[in-house]
């Protein structure tokens, strides 16, 4: 693979859901690209479409429109065997380690299942060996091999979920809030493990989270979503040093941190709450909560590059 070609790419990806009250635009015209060995962070509040985006990319739900490319090939056209091959390269870690593991399978069977499905191992010995290896990589003591999910706590279950995703040796993993359900000391262990794996194996991540501190720590590029649309996209340091979109600014102002100097900062509070993007109007979806809203905001806002690699969907923002 050439250096410049992205590993995963989407073009005008859309996902609409039909609801009794109208069409819900969960993901709207998302264009993203992730290079091999890099992490793209997706931040936003609940209902902004970040989880739907992750699922559509993995074809867990079919998109309404748009294309998803893996190493330059449109995976939406894949059928049968090709699909199985695709899932060898693309895997997922789920948010809730309590509901994403089959309670009736032992830990070793949970980790072995993707290898069986994809036909990656020849015999039982090889499989057992591989499970042992994966458990070690993910920091699970070998004595858990025959236990069941309910016997483990959240942190260890999340390690099982990670070991299962790694079982097929994927090049790309969608991490959907993998640490949100965990305590901070355990959260740090899992984040470090994910970063170590990236360093050793060159895995790419699409890291979905609502936590700006976590996303800053783990990502190379960051995408901020609001009601299904990407409102800002930039390299990590650029985004935190020079946030442009009013929503990004408000998010940054809202996060509680352990920094004493931020205690008495001027807080920018957002009015109101996130609405549902059901039959949305063409204009900026953030406008009803935006302090700078004006007549121009009724026009559709498109992502524009205002500085190298820094894109914003707001007509007011100039680099």
């Amino acid at each position, binding site marked *: 693979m050439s250096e410049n070609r992205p590993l995963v790419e989407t073009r005008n990806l859309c996902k609409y859901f039909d609801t009794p009250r109208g069409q819900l635009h969960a993901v709207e015209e998302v264009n993203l690209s992730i290079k091999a060995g890099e992490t793209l962070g997706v931040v936003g*509040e609940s209902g902004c479409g970040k989880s739907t985006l992750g699922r559509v990319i993995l074809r867990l739900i079919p998109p309404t429109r748009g294309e998803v490319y893996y190493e330059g090939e449109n995976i939406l056209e894949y059928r049968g065997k090709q699909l199985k091959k695709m899932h060898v390269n693309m895997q997922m870690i789920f948010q809730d380690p309590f509901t994403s593991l089959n309670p009736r399978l032992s830990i070793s069977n949970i980790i072995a299942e993707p290898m069986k499905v994809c036909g990656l191992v020849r015999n039982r010995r090889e499989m057992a060996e591989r499970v042992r290896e994966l458990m070690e990589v993910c920091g699970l003591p070998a004595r858990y091999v025959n236990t069941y999910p309910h016997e483990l706590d959240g942190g260890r279950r999340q390690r099982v979920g990670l070991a299962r995703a790694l079982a097929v040796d994927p090049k790309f993993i969608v991490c959907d809030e993998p640490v949100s359900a965990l305590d*901070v*000391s355990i959260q*740090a262990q899992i984040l*470090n493990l994910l970063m170590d794996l990236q360093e050793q194996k060159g895995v790419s991540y699409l890291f979905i989270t609502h936590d700006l501190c976590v996303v800053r720590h783990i990502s190379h590029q960051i995408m901020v979503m609001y009601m299904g649309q990407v409102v800002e996209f930039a390299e990590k340091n650029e985004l935190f040093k020079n946030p442009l979109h009013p929503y990004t600014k*408000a998010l940054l102002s809202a996060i509680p941190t*352990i*920094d004493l100097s931020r205690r008495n900062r001027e*807080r920018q509070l957002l009015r109101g*709450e996130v609405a549902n993007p059901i039959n949305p109007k063409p204009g900026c979806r953030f406008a009803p909560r935006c302090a700078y809203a004006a007549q121009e905001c009724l026009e559709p806002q498109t992502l524009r590059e205002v500085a190298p690699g820094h894109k914003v969907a707001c007509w007011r923002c100039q680099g």
Partner: protein
Amino acid sequence: MGNKMQKPANENLLEIRNLHVRYNTDEAVVHALNGFDLTLKRGETLGIVGETGAGKTTMALSIMRLLPKRIGEVTAGSIIYDGIDILKASANAMLKLRGKRISMIFQDPMTSLNPVQTVGSQIYEVLELHYPEMTREEKHRRVDEMLELVGIPPARKDEYPHQFSGGMKQRIVIAMALISKPELLLADEPTTALDVTIQAQILELVRELKRQFNTAMILITHDLGVVNEVCENVAIVYGGEVIERGTIEDVYVREKNHPYTEGLFGAIPDLVTDLPRLKSIPGYMVDPTNLPEGCKFADRCGFCTERCRRENPILHRLSDTHFIKCHLFEEGSNHE
């Protein structure tokens, strides 16, 4: 509330001494609190920080005497609230305390509201129960005022909980908790279920209402950041004990901390520093069904010695406000 404030002799509103609470379940005995000490002054805002299973919620339930019947058991210690011994008080005395002088806000606003009762009548109910002398008009006026105060149009008081969003529901719960003008508010993870921008709104509301009512507050959370936003003082809890206590400045300046507190700070990514990796705390939370003899943190601590495994440390005083429960801070010894 006003007349209570004029008693300067008793500055401490709440004193918890050496509290031991355990849960007797079918499988095992869970030691939730193991010598929990805490004092709270009138009007003070204290953050209680700890991870899952540290005993934070058990502490709040003990104060309210809402521990699960037959399972939860206080085995030692005392809780004194404004001169009243909570553990010995009659059921009737508790009814007068609970919801009137002490209020509680729970993590999930959906489960703490009655789904088949309008929100207005749920707030009204508090007044009916605790202020029977008030006239109906007076009560209705108070409900409207309170709704206004928490940022909900009083016109919506005849709606049901499901018609409100999560943030709005938490505002209603706060209105319910504060309408009786309590002296103490126990907030158990009040913003954990909310989005950051909504969390910021609720925290601002809490700050504002505290200024107005001068209510003392215990804010229970796992998030050191949230404590930094609203509290003056903080207590860090591990294995059912307070292992560090101080003003926000004492603790957050990060010069002298309990090794566990240090670990917590190291494990949180922030918005300023760039680290290749976070410093995680090795191992897992201490098992409350099988507590070690000495320091509960010994197994995960980088400074652990023979003594730590043998002997549980006492709370050492570093300054008038800052206390740490660790052998490293014994007088005469130097930590870093």
